[in-house]
């Protein structure tokens, strides 16, 4: 046994190094898997929440653009009731409300989508719309105000916690919504 002592020590060291390396590798793989699963869970949560009921059952009041109007202070929006899937999650509720507003034709094009909504503790909702939602609006200032105000008022009317709405376009903070109306400040 003694004559093989060096050999045994060397082998043990080799195995130990290999073992540590393999453990670190597995640790990193596991971390990556957890990150991926976490993002999948979020999407799955939304899907399962939306499919709880057999059909949409929660009534919400949407503030939609009143065609022909140009002055935001004068009957610019009208109220319409719609049904969405019931959910306790405010973000999911907000998503459904905005998605319903984005169905307004011809104000928004069919390529207009909601990228993400974030709800901050101070009552600010950050609505991140796709580039097409802004760039393919049919019209000028009237359309931009209609888009911004209908989303803002619809969210505020149905989710108490939302006090103001900030807009992002394509994930970016921009000076204007589609070239005219400033969105540097939040809307109420």
């Amino acid at each position, binding site marked *: 046994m*003694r*004559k*093989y*002592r*060096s*050999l045994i020590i*060397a082998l043990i060291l*080799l195995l130990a190094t290999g073992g540590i390396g393999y453990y670190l590798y597995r640790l990193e793989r596991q971390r990556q898997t957890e990150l991926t699963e976490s993002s999948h869970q979020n999407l799955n949560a939304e899907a399962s929440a939306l499919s709880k009921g057999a059909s949409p059952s929660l009534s919400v009041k949407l503030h939609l*653009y009143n*065609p*022909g*109007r*140009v*002055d*935001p*202070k*004068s009957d610019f929006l009208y109220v319409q009731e719609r049904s969405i899937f019931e959910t306790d999650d405010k973000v999911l509720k907000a998503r459904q409300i905005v998605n319903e507003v984005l169905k307004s*034709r*011809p*104000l928004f094009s069919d390529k207009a989508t909601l990228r993400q909504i974030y709800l901050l503790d101070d009552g600010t909702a950050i609505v991140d719309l796709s580039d097409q939602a802004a760039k393919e609006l*049919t*019209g*000028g*200032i*009237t*359309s931009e*105000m*209609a888009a911004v105000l209908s989303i803002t008022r619809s969210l505020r009317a149905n989710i108490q916690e939302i006090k*103001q709405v900030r807009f992002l376009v394509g994930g970016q903070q921009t*000076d*204007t919504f589609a*070239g*005219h*109306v*400033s969105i*540097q*400040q*939040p*809307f*109420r």
Partner: protein
Amino acid sequence: MAKPGTYRLAGALFFLLAVIPLIIAYSALNANADDDLQIWIGEKKSSVDSRSNQGKTYFELRDLVEILHLGFQENENEATVSGPRGQLRLTGNRPLVRFKDEYILLNQVVWRRKEKEWYVSEDFLQKALPMILSQKLERQGTLSYRMFPFEQNRVQVEVTNFPDHVRLTFTQTQNAPIKIQEFQDSIRVGFGDYLVVPALPNVKPDSRIVKGLQFDTTEIYGGFRIDKGQNYYNFREYPSDRPTRKVVDLYAPPLAAHTVPEVTPQPPPEPTPPVPQPGGGTTPEPVPVYKPRQFGNLITVDPGHGGEDYGVHPSQEDLEKNYTLRIAERIEARLRSTAYRGTLTRNQDTDPAAAQRSAMANYYQSRCYLSIHLGGAPAKDARGPVVYVHTYGGQESEAHDSGSGEKSLTPWDMGQKPFAAQSRQLGTLIQAELNSVFGTENHVVEVPLAQLAPVTSPAVLIEAGFLTNSDDQGKLATGEFQDRIAVAIVKAIQRFLD
């Protein structure tokens, strides 16, 4: 004491575990020593012989010339390499390569080993060769290059002459990074690694500020050279909404502007002599009052949109940007018969950034600012003129107020705040005049408008009818109706300012 066999075994293990990796690492580090350089053209790979000289690696120039189909001439200690786009002149034992009137500095000297045997360093391929090639030579990895056909970048230059500055607008077809470098006598504009195809302007720049504008072939892939005139003072480059465009304003010194009506500033008051005090001291001299130079009764008129920004466009023939320019030009023409003068933020089919348009109004200390647009709405029955003024209400203001009474800089987007009431007044007058023209009863609308927020004078945005309404569209298509709009706006301005 261990047996000899144990030591042999330990030695063998040590060799396996320590020495072999060292050998491998050493080989990897020295993999490039005396390795040839590879050039790929399409699927064909060619090698350029390498040779070591004083510890540095060189590559045979004749191989490069042959592979890249270049011309080569030698004259004793000088060599000329000719390509489709020019010639490079090399001198033995010098690190400088000459291209036209420019010198390119290499990391190593050019090595003339003997007659007709020249060697160059690798950075010759990166810095000098691209100047004369008609294709792009791109480094793929260690000692590996590939030839690519150039992507062309058509760059159009537009010149706009203003009273005190020259505006150059560069519009490119690619998204190349636009680099501007100032030299003693010139400013160079480069466009990344696309082959520039220039489209020079028909309008000549004001020669007092810009002596010349030419296509610069000394840039590797082409660029532009702006020669400074004797009245040149400084330049400013403006970011654009699109990466395909860059605006450069070249200025004369501030006192050089003379074509815009100017009010001669009052001389500062004579300092009063110090009054001797009973105690023997004196009162301090009053500080002379500085009066900023004024441009006179200038009104800034902004034709909305332009260039690639069509604005509202119900069809390819009806583009908002064209209407706004025509109406703005008519407003400027009408202003000439009044005590006021108009200046446009654009007089061509260009698209200055919103901040530039606002900045122009502020720079000229305009009496008022009008941004001309046409409306568009999802519903076709929205019609008539609508005048907009900026509002800070309905949004939470995040502007900071020092509150201490100290003078402080005004945040950019708060410039309009002191003028809100005047803007509403101006807007109301213009709305009333335009309603008479259109036969409508629309009202002034207050919305947060990014373009008006920074303006430090009464400012309105006018939508002179809706292009999405067939009735308005039919009227707007006629010059006569556009003129009526201009007359109405000028009348309202006079009522406001007089």
